[in-house]
């Protein structure tokens, strides 16, 4: 494809119904959504726990999580690479250059985001709710589901931020995935490849498709949030 207009290139790509493109998009979504799901399952309760508990070293932990939000993807990728390499501690699993490795790398990238943002949200809620919830016998671990549910509108932001970081990221998935055609090629690694081949319009076209997906997802989350907020009578 040597179309020089990226918008036309993007449109031609979509219109062609190219199964390769479909595969790349599907893999991107699968990897990113898996990483997001794992990060939520771990990050939300841990963030809530961190918000409600006071223990020595908590401050350091909070600072550490906040700092990890800025972890360079390449560093995360390299760490996972060394971990999963056949010569590394988890080598026998044979996970390097597979989508699972990419899920792990992206989880490392977005877990701190989910954790830090949910800690912030829950901390504010807990300050407001603490007396009432303790009065109702809803304290400690029992309060976590209550707080997460009541913070759901703010937590959507954390989820979208996590999704954004994972779906836009190329450094980590390139290292641990290897950008293998048909196996570990995502939209972002395909963009890197087409750029390297000098197919700049095609690369930008893929970028437009990625942006479109992100827009659709954000738009969906926004509308859902608006609807839920209205029906829950949320002022904010």
């Amino acid at each position, binding site marked *: 494809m040597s179309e020089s207009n990226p918008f036309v290139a993007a449109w031609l790509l979509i219109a062609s119904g190219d199964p390769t493109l479909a595969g790349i998009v599907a893999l991107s979504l699968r990897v990113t959504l*898996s990483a997001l799901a794992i990060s939520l399952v771990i990050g939300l309760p841990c963030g809530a726990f961190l918000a409600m508990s006071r223990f020595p070293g908590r401050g350091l932990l909070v600072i550490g999580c906040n700092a990890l939000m800025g972890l360079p993807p390449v560093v995360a990728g390299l760490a996972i690479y060394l971990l999963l390499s*056949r010569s590394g501690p988890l080598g026998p699993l044979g*996970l390097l250059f597979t989508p699972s490795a990419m899920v792990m790398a992206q989880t490392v990238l977005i877990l701190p985001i989910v954790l830090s943002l949910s800690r912030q949200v829950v901390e504010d809620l807990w300050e407001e709710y603490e007396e009432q919830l303790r009065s109702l016998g809803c304290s400690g671990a029992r309060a976590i*589901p209550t707080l997460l549910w009541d913070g759901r509108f703010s937590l959507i932001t954390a989820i979208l931020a996590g999704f954004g970081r994972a779906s836009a990221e190329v450094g980590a998935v390139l290292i641990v995935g290897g950008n293998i*055609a048909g196996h570990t090629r995502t939209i972002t690694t395909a963009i890197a490849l087409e750029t*390297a081949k000098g197919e700049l319009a095609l690369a930008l076209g893929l970028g437009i498709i990625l942006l479109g997906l992100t827009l659709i997802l954000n738009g969906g989350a926004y509308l859902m949030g608006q609807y839920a907020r209205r029906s829950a009578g949320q002022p904010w």
Partner: protein
Amino acid sequence: MVRKVAAVSLFLAVVALGASAQAQSEAGPITVASTTSTEQSGLFGAILPRFRARTGIEVKVIAQGTGQALETGRRGDSDVVFVHDPASEERFVAEGFGVRRHEVMYNDFVLIGPKADPAGVRGMTDVAAALARIAARGARFASRGDESGTHKAELRLWQAAGVDVRQTGGAWYRETGSGMGPTLNVASAGDAYTLADRGTWLSFRNRGELEILLAGDRRLLNQYGVILVHPARHPHVRARQGQAFIDWLVSPEGQKAIADFRIGGEQLFFPNAKESAS
């Protein structure tokens, strides 16, 4: 409610992990660590379907620089390496990481530069002399700088030209630290000279003012070799399938597949396997 959401998320995560772990079973594909020149030129895209049709073996290609590809093999993260730096390949085998080096094919490096040719190397036949002139004029040169086969070939040529780029290299000599494509993008944007493999050059689309200024010097030969990672070193290596891939590459059928790969009617790689076994 939250518990339900958490349970569903966990389930999805497990399914995703499980599905990808499934691809790891014994009958699975082999992994070949190769170079950007072979992958980005489209060679693998053209020949791998033929290999698969013949043997049923699927090949996953990771495109890296030669240095990184050999490192991947050393760590046991690929079954086969397919690269182009004979000296490093010999060392790889001598150190016991590879079983044996097989020559497969060659193409050539070409000296690329802006049409305006500020150093005036067009028409020269001696690549070392041309590089010496570029250095003498202080014309911009973009180097891969990534320990790839192309980078190592380039450094050998500078040596032959009697130019020590580490010493004399100033603002005119720039290391991109990236693959061939990104380096060509840099050269294109900055009207710089660069050394490229012909395959990548032919498939490269963002040429701008760049064109081939010098080719054909014997020292520009770019030999590719393929090596099976040693199963004695890394027992998990899929030696049988990996060897089948190597055997096919050097077989008449594989050699013909390589010769048949063309871009715009131009042949990119020239098979020259020594053993025409099989």
